[in-house]
């Protein structure tokens, strides 16, 4: 298809985070309910490119994916002096809220995967009324660690190769080869120590055990979907988490792993389209009630 141009538009927005200006790269397509998509640790917004170009979904949603600072085309802030990057719960939540404010989004839906799924639970605990709905992919209140993150950033091990090789096993074996390779490519391109720094939030700073019980799904509906091949955040982890949240919707996705939106976009669509339809219908009925 020589000359075909995709409908995705990429731009930079400036947002104040931690008292400092950050230049955040984001891509978007569509019109309607704002749907903000959060990438996994150590990757970037390209993971969402198939969702962004979904014609049917783009008719009803303004689909937006941004690169977290240090990731993709969002550089570290100007004040960065080379110190080790570490993502904290507070900084992650602040970044998402600052991005949504900068784009003046009205009660967006936020969908995050992996660390993005974990922070969605945080948002549900602390800021539920700011969001129309929250979707956590590969999300749980906690999951058992399965490797030592110090291997991710040391001078005698190739960071890109080891990061990609570690997460390669989280992709379902049914995933198309090209989609698998593209998912891993983002990991091979990450900056040194960025994947490890993201996992500080996941492993050290983001344990939500004993806190998710307080989530009020009447204030903000929450949907949790996890791939059956994800052995990092297992289906059991997600089902346990959902069981503690009254009114949470939970789905175990077949033939998918830890990166559903990029490792097998067609299979992921079978699961996410009905969730987005439900959110849209819920949003419509809310409007009618107000009217």
């Amino acid at each position, binding site marked *: 298809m020589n000359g075909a141009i995709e409908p995705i538009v990429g731009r930079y927005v400036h947002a104040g985070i931690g008292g400092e200006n950050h230049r955040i790269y984001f891509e978007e397509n569509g019109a309607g309910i704002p749907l903000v998509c959060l990438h996994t640790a150590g990757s970037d917004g390209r993971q969402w490119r198939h969702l962004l170009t979904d014609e049917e979904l783009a008719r009803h949603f303004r689909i937006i994916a941004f690169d977290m600072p240090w990731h993709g085309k969002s550089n570290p802030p100007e004040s960065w002096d080379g110190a080790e990057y570490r993502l904290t719960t507070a900084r992650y939540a602040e970044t998402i809220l600052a991005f949504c404010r900068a784009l003046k989004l009205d009660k967006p839906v936020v969908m995050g995967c992996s660390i993005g799924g974990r922070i969605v639970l945080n948002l549900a605990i602390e800021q539920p009324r700011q969001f129309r709905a929250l979707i956590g992919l590969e999300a749980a209140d906690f999951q058992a660690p399965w490797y030592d993150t110090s291997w991710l950033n040391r001078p005698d091990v190739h960071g890109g*190769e080891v990061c990609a090789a570690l997460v390669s096993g989280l992709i379902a074996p049914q995933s198309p080869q090209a989609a698998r390779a593209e998912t891993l490519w983002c990991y091979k391109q990450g900056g040194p120590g960025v994947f490890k720094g993201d996992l500080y939030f996941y492993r050290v700073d983001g344990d939500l055990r004993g806190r998710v019980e307080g989530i009020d799904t009447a204030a903000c509906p929450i949907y949790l979907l996890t791939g059956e091949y994800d*052995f990092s955040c297992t289906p059991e982890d997600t089902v346990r988490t959902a069981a503690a949240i009254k009114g949470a919707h939970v789905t175990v996705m077949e033939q998918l792993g830890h990166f559903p939106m990029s490792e097998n976009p067609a299979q992921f669509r079978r699961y996410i389209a009905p969730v987005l339809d439900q959110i849209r219908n819920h949003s419509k009925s809310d409007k009618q009630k107000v009217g």
Partner: protein
Amino acid sequence: MRMTVSSASDIAVAETFAGIPAMLGRAPDLVVRGRMLSCECLLGPIDHPFHVSIRDGVIVDMTPAPVLMRSWRFAFRASSAAWMEYWQPMPRPGWHDLLALTKRKEAILEGDLHPFMTHLQYFKDLLALPRSHRGEAA
């Protein structure tokens, strides 16, 4: 006999392992990926592993353990059931990756992990070679 095996699945796993060097010989891209790797390691079933000598990505020797005073840098050993599952053409969830096996305690990873981690994808793919060669290896 230097090696004792106790069940049909142990024998099948040992036989399949013995075929891996030849399978690697028919996977030139994988050898290229391991071109900077030379090490001694212990791979295979938990009770009956093999001493594997790798030079420039090629397996130049594979001998059933134990070998008197033979040293190794790292070991990856798994139950026979785990290897049989790992080698399925479409493995089941939780049995499809070497580190999924260690997480579910069906495999043990020990020793100096540096060569394993610098060539993690190489070892994952090397040990998955029987997936596409089950017919000829069995």
